């Protein structure tokens, strides 16, 4: 395979594609509402109306507007049909011959779409993720060729550094710095790991990327391998994402067949193979050291850092571990240059971020927005606001993050601003809460999650989350006093400061941030010690 052959595949693919393409979402969300039935009916209708010459139906990845799914979009007319049911499929095809389509016609110019900046999701929902030719037709694998033939590994690392890309898994560590560290580590064997163990409640960005455009991640990993000198990559995907796993498997096979992965990629001396490892259901395996233990076949327990994986990671070799979304940004940076990427976003947070916008909001779904956009723009303009009542808070960062109150909706979405207000960027879950939501209940929900997901290795996280959950439950049952609240705050600080890994260190965040902004809700639930004594006396026990 050389560049000419790659472009020949692209040409053939474009020639093969029909003038009218009917995109039917076949991702997990829409599948749950029988998207596969719609897909089948659309294909049958095309055949029935003898439109095969100019119309083709393709199963695509996520279009983003998941709350209104299943979605069907007609290209190039840019018609978007929402909440389609299988029975309406025929009418969509009939509409092409002058009939009337039954499903709701959506507004593809709605701010939900119009305000997005699509870098990672550029071709999500536009190409068939199960055919590598479609990816190649939109310029796929050209970045890998460019990296191998026009750039030195050091130049690739420099581009990534200059782009200002930071880790999209939540921590926000500068990606270029991580790459440079691994690249400079001595040793013949290095590894690339793609962390696809997305587990925050309400977050599904990485699943969508893997399901919608798997080659984007594979190509990003190969470029990373070239840049740091690794010849082997692992994608760690949670078992709960069977479709993503299937599409990745198919993607790897197809890329290998074309010589885009495996030995001597593009007939160069660069080898890179990718294996998939499937998680076994532990949230903590998203923590990088636990993930490495899990790949090695051990119990998914975090281990103390340093040494960091960049120094001693998988099988004790220098290992570059990046999140799915981080790696999905790489091809665009190599293609368009670091300066282009750095022109998007803010001073210290460059590029775009995908959020899973969920909760009490009109428009649920995935959005890719430039860094620096305010929460208000996301919630009110793009999300269409809360269906009933008012926004109360926005939760970002999942069980590691915090709740940002309504009064702070003008906070720009970037790593540093979100941290300043006591939350964090996190992997991209964004849960909107309305004024019917109990903030103490939310804190309890996240603590229950952490209590169930702590590995149990270190004392503060294993025992602290149990006690914190019990304390929050006590408050909600109106059995806690002011002393209990003080005790809980002290325990939050202890768990945060002394836990071994990120899970424990951030587990108290939902409590601390709701205490910071909604303290009155906690206080309203407290009772006086005398009341408890009285209740105890009534039941003949001591308080």
């Amino acid at each position, binding site marked *: 395979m050389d560049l000419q052959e790659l472009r020949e595949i692209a040409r053939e693919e474009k020639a093969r594609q029909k003038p009218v393409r009917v995109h039917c979402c076949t991702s997990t969300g829409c599948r749950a509402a029988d998207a596969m039935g719609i897909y089948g009916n659309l294909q049958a209708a095309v055949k029935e109306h003898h439109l095969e010459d100019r119309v083709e139906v393709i199963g695509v990845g996520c279009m983003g507007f998941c709350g209104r799914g299943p979605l069907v979009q007609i290209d190039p007319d840019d018609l978007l049909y929402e909440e389609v049911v299988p029975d309406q499929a025929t009418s969509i095809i009939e509409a092409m011959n002058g009939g009337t389509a039954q499903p709701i016609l959506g507004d593809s110019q709605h701010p939900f779409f119009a305000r997005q900046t699509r870098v990672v999701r550029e071709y999500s929902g536009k190409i068939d993720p199960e055919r590598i030719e479609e990816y190649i037709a939109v310029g796929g694998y050209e970045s890998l060729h460019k990296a191998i033939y026009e750039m030195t590994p050091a130049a690739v690392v420099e581009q990534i550094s200059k782009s200002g890309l930071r880790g999209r898994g939540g921590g926000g560590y500068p990606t270029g710095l991580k790459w440079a560290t691994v690249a400079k580590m001595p040793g013949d064997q290095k590894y690339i790991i793609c962390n696809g163990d997305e587990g925050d409640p309400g977050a599904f960005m990485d699943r969508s990327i893997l399901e919608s455009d798997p080659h984007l991640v594979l190509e990003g990993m190969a470029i990373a391998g070239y840049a740091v000198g690794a010849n082997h990559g692992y994608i760690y995907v949670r078992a709960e994402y069977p479709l993503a796993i299937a599409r990745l498997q198919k993607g790897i096979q197809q890329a290998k067949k074309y010589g885009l992965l495996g030995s001597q990629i593009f007939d160069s001396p660069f080898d890179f193979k990718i294996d998939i490892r499937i998680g076994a259901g*532990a949230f*903590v395996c998203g923590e990088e050291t636990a993930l490495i233990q899990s790949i090695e076949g051990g*119990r998914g*327990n975090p*281990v*103390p850092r340093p040494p960091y994986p960049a120094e001693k990671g998988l099988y004790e070799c220098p290992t570059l571990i990046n999140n799915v979304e981080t790696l999905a940004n790489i091809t665009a940076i190599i293609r368009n240059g670091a300066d282009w990427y750095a022109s998007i976003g803010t001073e210290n947070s460059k590029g775009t971020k995908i959020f899973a916008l969920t909760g009490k909001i009109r428009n649920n779904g995935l959005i890719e927005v430039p860094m620096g956009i305010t929460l208000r723009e996301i919630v009110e303009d793009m999300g269409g606001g809360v269906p009933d009542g008012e926004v109360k808070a926005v939760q970002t960062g999942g069980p590691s993050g915090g709740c940002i109150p309504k009064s702070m909706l003008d906070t720009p979405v970037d790593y540093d601003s979100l941290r300043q207000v006591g939350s964090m960027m996190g992997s991209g879950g964004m849960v909107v809460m309305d004024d019917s939501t109990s903030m103490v209940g939310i804190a309890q929900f996240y603590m229950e999650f952490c*209590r*169930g*997901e*702590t*590995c*149990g*290795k*270190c*004392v*503060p996280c*294993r*025992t*602290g*989350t*149990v*006690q914190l959950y*019990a304390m929050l439950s006590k408050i909600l049952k109106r059995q806690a006093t002011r002393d209990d609240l003080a*005790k809980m705050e*002290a*325990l939050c600080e*202890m768990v945060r*400061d*002394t*836990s*071994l890994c990120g899970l424990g260190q951030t587990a108290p965040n939902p409590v601390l941030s709701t205490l910071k902004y909604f303290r009155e809700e906690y206080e309203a639930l407290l009772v006086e010690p005398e009341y408890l004594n009285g209740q105890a006396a009534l039941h003949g026990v001591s308080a």
Partner: protein
Amino acid sequence: MSVKTLKIDNQDIAVEAGTTIMEAAKEAGVRIPKLCHLEGLTPVGACRLCLVEIEGMNKLLPSCVTEVWEGMVIHTQTPKLQEYRRMNVELIFAEGNHVCSICVANGNCELQDVAVEVGMDHSRFPYRFPDRHVDLSHPLFGIDHNRCILCTRCVRVCDEVEGAHVWDVAQRGAAAYIVSGLNQPWGEVDACTSCGKCVDACPTGAIFKQGSTTGEKDADAPKFEFLTAAREKHQWTR
């Protein structure tokens, strides 16, 4: 071999590069509380009692796994550390069923010693009273999960020193427990050599010799430092 000079609780000390903070503190005669670490076994940094403050760092670091660096200024007994350690021990006591008065290890228990050391006289957190079981299927020994603090010393000593790998950790979080064999009764695990190293390594009364009663367990935890030194450095004196 290079040497690093550092300061532990205002005391200057020079140690070999590669030494951990805990080893350096031992050399300086500074005691740092610990429960999961045992000299001679791989440190895991799990109990979090040995966390120390380093000047210029906002993170507390576990002294059992952190190697010293030149010019490090370490504080092992700040008010914050003392408070956190006390809470930590309270949490351990509240988590299991630790009743000293009827325990085989009473008077010879590292958990008890640490509780005294950090000044813990009661727990501010409610006791969880978990429903845990006792396994007496082994002819010589027994394991009482009520007294287990999940330090994993037994797991490591069996794995690293005896090489039998009878023990491991099952489940996660509050449900985690020390498991023998393939989740079999201890007495049915063929791999067990009945060497008793886990009895000696156990810091509490969780693993004990059958027949011992209250206060009769007399574990020999320092023996693993000797065993490892004997194997690796051929030093045969204790």
